[in-house]
């Protein structure tokens, strides 16, 4: 049976659409694929699959048909096979548990038609997994990631023979979209990108750079950006400010409200990493100008290694990064710990961890 597309919010699949024609052409193959998927135990609803095909796959295949008609069959087959897995797992389709992933298929993948025609299975899977991972992180911004990757892909050169550079850009964009724990490895990837791409991925498109079209100017601009990026709190698009201590946000909350902690956490530092521990688990804590994340530690967390990078008294007077300031919100803190660029403070009767950073100026060295 051909998975019969049911009426979707957008209506029936147009019988003349590229997807409908391709499904008709490979009818036996696709029918068998659905039957086998169901037989191997996948909890696959053909109704949900039909909706997903209409809503998400049809626009992608239509975009491919416009750009590279010869690639319609392999792209359809790849997306169809992937859809069987993902609809069965409720990752995409009308029962999707992550609306962001559903949006990635219906809105982002059609914008990626050009690279998608090259490696449909790989790119569609990568985008699905990336948005899924971003959606799982409370402080991340998957919509920003989708928008920025779509913008990059629309200016992707026709002649580009591979999707690898786009996927590399996606990694840097994920860091920019709030995944602070990936900062180190994202910066390494950024260092390996060609100058125009490295600037574009941080929001410096050609229209913005204007006169920076020549190679030398691009390179200089990039050097300047790299210097600024050494400071975790210096955003590339924000001009430098006078140094000051600021509460830059908070992480964590009570498990009962969807947070990670079952009891008020305590914080400690070990090496260059901050750790937060409650009665049940230990998390590493990461923060920079783009986001703040907690990652549950798998395995044995390292022991505390006390450092004297910060001082905090009962009145909330904090000394950190060569600056001293009185921050009343930090008065009567339960505990605190600091690494080079970040001070984490816990308060009695709170599951939140307040984050203090030195914004502006040169970073303090231990």
């Amino acid at each position: 049976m051909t998975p019969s597309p049911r009426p979707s919010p957008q209506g029936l699949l147009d019988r003349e659409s590229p997807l409908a024609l391709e499904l008709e052409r490979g009818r036996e193959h696709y029918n068998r694929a659905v039957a086998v998927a169901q037989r191997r135990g996948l909890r696959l609803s053909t109704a949900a699959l039909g909706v997903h095909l209409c809503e998400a796959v049809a626009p992608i295949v239509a975009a491919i048909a416009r750009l590279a008609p010869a690639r319609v069959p392999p792209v359809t087959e790849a997306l169809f096979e992937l859809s069987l897995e993902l609809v069965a797992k409720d990752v995409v389709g009308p029962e999707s548990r992550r609306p962001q992933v559903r949006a990635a298929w219906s809105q982002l993948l059609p914008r990626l038609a050009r690279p998608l025609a090259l490696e449909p299975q790989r790119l569609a899977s990568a985008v699905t997994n990336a948005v899924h991972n971003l959606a799982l992180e409370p402080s991340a911004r998957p919509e920003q990631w989708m928008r920025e990757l779509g913008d990059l892909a629309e200016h992707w050169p026709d002649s580009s023979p591979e999707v690898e550079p786009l996927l590399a850009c996606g990694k840097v964009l994920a860091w920019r979209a709030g995944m602070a724990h990936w900062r180190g490895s994202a910066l390494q990837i950024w260092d390996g990108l060609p100058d125009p791409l490295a600037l574009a991925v941080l929001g410096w498109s050609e229209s913005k750079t204007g006169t920076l079209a020549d190679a030398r100017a691009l390179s200089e601009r990039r050097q300047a950006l790299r210097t600024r990026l050494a400071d975790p709190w210096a955003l590339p698009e924000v001009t430098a400010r006078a140094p000051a201590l600021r509460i830059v946000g908070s992480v964590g909350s009570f498990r009962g409200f969807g947070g990670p902690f079952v009891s008020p956490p305590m914080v400690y530092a070990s090496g260059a990493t901050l750790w937060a521990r409650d009665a049940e688990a230990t998390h590493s804590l990461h923060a920079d100008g783009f986001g703040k994340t907690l990652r549950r530690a798998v395995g044995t967390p390292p022991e505390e290694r006390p450092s004297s990078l910060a001082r905090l008294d009962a009145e909330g007077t904090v000394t950190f990064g060569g600056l001293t300031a009185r921050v009343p919100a930090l008065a009567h803190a339960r505990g605190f710990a600091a690494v080079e660029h970040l001070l984490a403070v816990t308060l009695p009767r709170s599951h939140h961890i307040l984050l203090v950073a030195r914004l502006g100026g040169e970073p303090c060295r231990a």
Partner: protein
Amino acid sequence: MVRKRFDQVSKAPTLPGPGRAEGHFDVGELYRGPAPIEAREAVTTRLDEKLRQAYFWVTNHAIINPFYDVEYNAGPPKEYTFGGQGIAVTLPSDQSYSSYVLLPLLNLAVRRRCLLVGGPGRGKTTIAMLMGLLSGYSLRELRRAVQHGQPQMTVSDLLGNPLPSSLLAAKEMDEIKIAWRRWLGMRVKIIDEYNRIPTRTQSALLTVMADNYAEVYDQIYECPKAAWYLTANDDAGGGTYQVIEALRDRIDVVVKALHFNTRFLSELLARIEDDVRPEEVVPAEIIFTPAELERMEREILAVELPVPLRRRLEFFASHFEFLESSARQLEYLTKDTFKLSGLDRGTLALDETGKDALADLGTQTHNGLSVRALMTSLVFVKAMAYFRASRVVSFEDVRQMLPFVLHDKLVQNADAPWFEQRGNAALRIDQVSWIRRLFDLSCREYDRLDRDRDDPVERMTAEFSGGLEGLEEKVVRERLVTIERTLKEWSRGGKLYGHLYDDILNLKYLHQRYSNYLRWVTCCP
């Protein structure tokens, strides 16, 4: 597309360990998630991980084998008792395995000889073929290479024929050219129904299995090191021809093909309907190259066996060879002495020793453990640890592997009084559980004697292994006195058991070595 269902190799670590938490993260994680990403480039996988991936592929996709008889526990398992015999059903609290897939796979990794026994249609040949496929051979190559035992099988059928032209032209034996059978040169050798091979051909097979070469008309073919898989429908070695003892002795592990669980009939149905055989769709990621197999074996042999565990194994092995009523000279007090005498077992008066026949584990066997059996045990316990991503053998690795290695090595004395005890009768039949029980009882005795902390022979052996060179006469005399005192103390206990027998022999050896040295020191000061 249908093949895709068989094409899934575990991407997640198959045995995630506690490890050390890291504060550093890789943005490459961004693209890992619910959607499968096809590997674009060869991923460097650790070989133990690849071995586990192969295991899980075989158990999940190739062989319908919902059994977990190799049990590991991370904490106390849940246990339920069923039936009048009190059959314990345990739910293991750690990753556990099916011996039917695990043992053939470990055999592939250490390239030894595995016997698969069980009734017809249990998948014995299939698992052997799968092991061949995992070694990189094609199905076609393997089908041609499988040696099917049958009553008319000749030595030429097995090994090869002289080329007729060279046979006619040859003036000397060494001028005869032999067309060797191709399977002799393969890294995986499969002998189907080996107990249907005539006795004379079994002898030729023995040479290949034992010494890794084949001989026809004075011509020698040197075989590469290989993993062997033999199948038999009859565990007892019966069949059309009795299997010669030397051939049985060369088999390193014995694995039973378990029955088909009828709850999995739907899986059979799906296979019929899909018309795809797992052997035809082994994923490339789990196929080992010859170099990888070599490296894996080296890595396995490098796995450490801690001294306390080695001591437990020695203690266990020491129970079986000793037979007090077989001689008067210490060195000959063995079952081997009795066996060579050719006398009937009834002539032995076991009760004269005054020992508790229930406590003496040696009464449960007709033989002791050969050097080959002990060496194979050591190799397989290391392989088990390696499979579980450990570089050190654990107690449970030893406990789980011994029954499969010693299955055909320890000959059970079913008349032993121990089997008359309540709940033990079934162990006359269930060889695996019996050997595991023997090991447990041996460990209990080891703990009762507190051998981990109080082991004078180990201490004295360690002293001796420091070397004799430069040892002062006074020290040597002290050590001799210690040995004599120890023996005197032990002799007061009266009863002699296997473990004590080996220790006494060891002390006698040390005494002799020290005495000889002392004579030399005092003669040539």
